[in-house]
C-alpha cells in the first residue's frame, strides 16, 4: 500500500472535508424538497402540476441517493466488479417497475366487490355464500372496460 499510484486493490482514504460537504449538500437537498413540496407548481405542457411536483421530489431523492451511494458508500473509489454488483440491484428494480407497463396497457378494471363491501372491513364470506355461484366469471376475475 506504499505505492502512490492507484491500483485496483488500493483503498482510498477520503478526507473529512469531502464527507462534510456531502452531508451539507444532502441537508440542503432535504430542505429544498420540503420547501418545493409546499408550493403547488404549474403544469408544464401535457404534465399536470402534480406530476411536475412529484418528478421534482423524485429527482431530488435520486440526487441524494447518488450522493450517499457514490461518496458515503465509497462506490466512486471502488473496483469495477463492485460497481457491477451495485448496478445489478438497481437495474433489477427498474425491470420490476416495467411491470407497470402491463397495468397501463391492459384495458381491464376490477370487478365490483372491493368497492361494495362495507367500508374498512375485509371481505368475509359465510360458508353458504362461498358455495353459491356468483355472476358469470370470465375466469380472469376482471371485466373488460367498455
Amino acid at each position: 500500500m506504499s505505492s502512490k499510484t492507484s491500483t485496483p486493490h488500493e483503498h482510498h482514504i477520503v478526507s473529512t472535508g469531502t464527507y462534510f460537504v456531502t452531508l451539507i449538500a444532502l441537508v440542503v437537498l432535504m430542505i429544498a424538497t420540503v420547501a418545493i413540496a409546499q408550493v403547488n407548481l404549474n403544469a408544464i405542457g401535457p404534465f399536470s402540476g402534480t406530476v411536475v411536483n412529484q418528478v421534482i421530489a423524485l429527482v431530488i431523492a435520486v440526487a441524494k441517493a447518488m450522493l450517499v451511494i457514490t461518496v458515503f458508500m465509497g462506490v466512486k473509489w471502488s473496483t469495477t466488479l463492485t460497481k457491477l454488483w451495485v448496478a445489478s440491484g438497481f437495474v433489477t428494480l427498474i425491470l420490476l417497475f416495467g411491470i407497470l407497463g402491463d397495468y397501463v396497457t391492459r384495458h381491464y378494471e376490477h370487478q365490483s366487490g372491493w368497492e361494495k363491501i362495507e367500508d374498512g372491513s375485509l371481505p368475509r364470506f359465510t360458508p353458504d355464500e362461498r358455495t353459491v355461484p356468483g355472476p358469470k366469471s370470465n375466469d380472469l376475475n376482471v371485466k373488460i372496460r367498455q
Partner: protein
Amino acid sequence: MSAITNSPDHGHGHGHDSALHHQFEDIGQQNESYIVGMWVFLSTEVMFFGALFFIYTLYRWNYQQDFYIAHEHLNVIMGAVNTTVLLFSSFTMVMAVQSAQLKKRGHVIGYLLMTIACACVFLIIKYFEYSSKLADHLYPGAGFATDAQAAFGEHAIEAGKVAVNMNHAQLFYSLYFGMTGLHAVHIIAGILVIGALIRLWFNNAKSVTLDFVPTEMVGLYWHFVDLVWIFLFPLFYLMPKPH
C-alpha cells in the same frame, strides 16, 4: 488464525497479526470480496424494498385523491427532522470507517456511539409519530372506517367536502406502517450490529482492528437504511396535491 495460515508454502509473509485469510491472494482481493459480498446482500434488500415501492406506486396511481387526503395526517416536520437525523448518522458512520482506516480506535468508538444515538433519536421520533396515528385510529384494522371517521370527517370538509374512500385510506396506512415499519426493523437491526461492532472495537478484537473493511461493511448496511428513508420521506410525507 490457524497454523496453516502461517505455513511458508503460502509465501504471503503474513503472520498472526495479519487480517488476511489464507484463501485470498492479498488484502486487496479479500477486501473486494467482502465488499462485493455486502453489495450482493444489499441488492437483495433493494429488491425486497423495491417490491413494496412498486405496490405503493400502483395504489397511489389508482387512488390519488384518497392517498393525498390520508397523507395529510402525517407530520412533515417530524419526517424532515428524522431525515436529517439519518443523514447525520450516515456522516458519523462514514467518519467511523475513516477512523478505522487511520486506525484511530477511540474515534471509531466515538463515531459509532454517535451513530447509535442518532438511530435511537430516529426511533423515538417514530414512536411519537406512530402513537399519534394510533390515537387517531389511523391504522389498518377491522374497525378502520368507523374509528378513523372522526379524523377524516373534519378533514373532508376542510378539503372541500371530498369524500374519502375509507378502504383506500386504509390501504395508504397499511403501506405506511408496512414500509416505515420494515425500515424501522432495519434501524433496530442496525443498532444491534453497530453495538456488536463497538464491542469488538472496545475489546480490541483483531477481527476489526487489523483491517477497516469489517467496519466498512456495517457502514454500507447503515447507508442503505438511510437510502431507503431518502425515498420513503418524499413519497409518504411530501405528496403533491392531485389536480
